[in-house]
């Protein structure tokens, strides 16, 4: 069966520091991968998605970036964090447009 991992689970970072969040899917190959941010425990905002290695689509312009260096690895990065980057970051995967997206456990980021 497939499993999705995210780390770290919790992160506290100062403003202006860099960021790297990692998402890895096990038990499958060539998944679609997604990064979401959830602010204040409510609505989800799609940040990036990837349908293959090196293919990244950005949904919202901001100081975050994403990379997919390996088939089952999706990384969310920032060179300089802002206070507004605080939130709950969720990674998800699926196959194709029809299939259900399955979510990882999330990373809670607090920027101080």
């Amino acid at each position, binding site marked *: 069966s497939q499993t999705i991992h995210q780390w770290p689970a919790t992160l506290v970072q100062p403003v202006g520091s860099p960021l790297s969040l990692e998402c890895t899917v096990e038990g499958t190959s060539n998944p679609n991968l997604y990064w979401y941010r959830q602010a204040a425990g409510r609505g989800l905002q799609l940040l990036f998605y990837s349908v293959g290695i090196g293919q990244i689509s950005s949904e919202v312009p901001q100081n975050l970036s994403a990379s997919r260096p390996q088939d089952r690895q999706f990384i969310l990065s920032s060179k300089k964090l802002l206070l507004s980057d605080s939130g709950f970051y969720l990674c998800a995967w699926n196959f194709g447009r029809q299939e259900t997206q399955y979510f*990882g*456990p999330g990373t809670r980021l607090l920027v101080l």
Partner: protein
Amino acid sequence: AQSVAQPEDQVNVAEGNPLTVKCTYSVSGNPYLFWYVQYPNRGLQFLLKYITGDNLVKGSYGFEAEFNKSQTSFHLKKPSALVSDSALYFCAVRDPGHYQLIWGAGTKLIIKP
């Protein structure tokens, strides 16, 4: 513009009573419809989906949802609520031609003993 509305910010139900969490959408064509649940500080868990076929879809934990094309709604229901059903519920819709899901803002469900 494509959108999903969950008109109730919070729904309060007594344990044992039936519950309904509402969702309406504005997406062209024949969209795919999903419900997810989120417990505190956790990722989202898939409950059920409608792609095609029978308008009444059954999912996990005794939940079901009814697709109504004329009213563009996909309300989540459960005949008898449990305290453990208390969580945040999200409705999401996908245009079949796209990868992205369009999300509702979420409804907080509180089941009181």
